[in-house]
């Protein structure tokens, strides 16, 4: 994955000084001292400036900056949403369309035409607008919940401050409007606690990123075909385990910074991680890993498919489809689909296993808990192979690991 995305190394945001000096600290202070009616304006001005600045300097350049128009269009269009109205479905469709065009265009046309040289529809200058995978989820959530009457409309400025809220704009945690709205109207006013907790959380997140996640890069850089083929077999599981450590500390560190940044405004946003590698089953793993995504997928994919209120076979299909969507969302590549399928199969297997044996006893001995934890950790780590390597490289990895090359 490291070498699949062009210009990736430029994409640093939370670990840059401009983020703190130009955006976070001025915005948090302005938000704190502004009158309630102006809070949305502060979020919108800084959110817009943040999007333009980091689009131009890090992601997409000038064309990327023009994608601010997507937010303006969405804010205007969302004013048409009513309970039970078909316009909400148009909103969902257009949100998905934005994502498909920017993220999956070359992947989907490539599936039909083959390599870029043979693909007449290949988009050479393709770029990902900043945070598109995440703001798409918030757009869809708002349209679906307005359709169901599960959230109030709020004002256009309030909705815009929800989608342009820069601490969570780029990579979550994925917020819910009905949770966010009361917080922007009545943020927590104990500034001393907000800043103590917020700054601690940001520093802890940066420490996780710099001191642990980035340290693992020395090992994970070897996950390419040339290094795998020339490596000793014992090194391969270690490199893969290093990737498991890296992605956890990288993304949980990122989430810490986002949550801590929001806290400086006096706003609490959802947690994203809760010790996922200490969980004793794959189902528990997904309740504790990227929590805001898991909940979104449950509410807007799994439950609309019928959830767990249908026949057993259909539940298993629903689980598989949900995890395939999760895989495809993570990246436009067949390896991400396989990664999603891997977790779907694990969830189905876990469901059948627990139905056969009954739910685990809370008073089971420590050694059994430890065994389940290690087992879950190993299954998840095998799955990372499909996440961090394309399929041919993953095939080489497993063939070499199993001694079958």
């Amino acid at each position: 994955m490291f070498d699949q995305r062009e210009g990736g190394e430029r994409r640093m945001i939370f670990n840059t000084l401009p983020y703190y000096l130009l955006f976070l600290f001025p915005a948090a202070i302005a938000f704190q001292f502004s009158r309630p009616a102006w809070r949305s304006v502060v979020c919108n001005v800084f959110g817009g400036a943040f999007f333009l600045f980091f689009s131009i300097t890090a992601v997409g350049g000038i064309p990327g900056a023009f994608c601010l128009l997507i937010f303006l269009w969405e804010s205007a269009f969302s004013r048409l949403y009513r309970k039970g109205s078909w316009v909400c479905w148009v909103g969902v469709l257009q949100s998905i369309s934005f994502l498909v065009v920017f993220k999956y265009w070359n992947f989907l046309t490539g599936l039909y035409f083959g390599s870029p040289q043979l693909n007449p529809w290949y988009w050479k200058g393709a770029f990902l607008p900043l945070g598109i995978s995440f703001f798409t989820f918030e757009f869809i959530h708002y349209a679906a919940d307005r359709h169901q009457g599960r959230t109030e409309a709020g004002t256009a400025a309030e909705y815009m401050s929800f989608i342009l809220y820069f601490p969570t704009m780029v990579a979550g945690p994925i917020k819910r409007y009905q949770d966010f709205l009361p917080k922007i109207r009545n943020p927590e006013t104990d500034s001393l606690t907000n800043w103590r907790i917020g700054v601690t959380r940001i520093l802890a997140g940066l420490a996780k990123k710099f001191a642990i996640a980035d340290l693992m890069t020395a090992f994970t850089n070897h996950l390419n075909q040339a290094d795998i083929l020339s490596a000793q077999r014992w090194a391969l599981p270690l490199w893969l385990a290093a990737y498991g450590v890296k992605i956890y500390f990288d993304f949980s560190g990122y989430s810490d910074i986002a949550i801590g940044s929001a806290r400086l405004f006096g706003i609490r946003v959802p947690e994203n991680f809760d010790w996922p590698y200490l969980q004793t089953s794959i189902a528990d793993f997904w309740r504790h890993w990227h929590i805001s995504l898991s909940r979104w997928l449950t509410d807007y994919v799994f439950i609309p498919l019928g959830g767990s209120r249908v026949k057993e076979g259909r539940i298993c299909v629903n689980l598989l489809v949900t995890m395939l969507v999760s895989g495809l969302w993570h990246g436009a590549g067949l390896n991400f689909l396989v990664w999603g399928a891997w977790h779907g199969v694990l969830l189905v297997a876990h469901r059948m296993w627990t139905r056969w044996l009954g739910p685990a006893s809370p008073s089971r001995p420590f050694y059994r808990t430890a065994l389940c934890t290690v087992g879950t950790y190993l299954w998840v780590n095998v799955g990372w192979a499909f996440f961090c390597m394309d399929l041919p490289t993953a095939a080489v990895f497993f063939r070499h690991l199993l001694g079958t090359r």
Partner: protein
Amino acid sequence: MMIPFLNELKSGLEYLGGVKEDSPESLPKWLQSPWWWGIWWAALILLILMFSGQSSKFIYIDF
């Protein structure tokens, strides 16, 4: 015996990482003082500076 110890360890780490606001009862009271927070922040900043040379992008920014 092992599980309560691990739970206390988790709570302590969550407090130090800013996930939990209130100090667990098992931790000493001085961990709530402003002096402690100053020292802890300085230690974290030192750690960040020590490792900042190898900084790379966040993985999920590309998603």
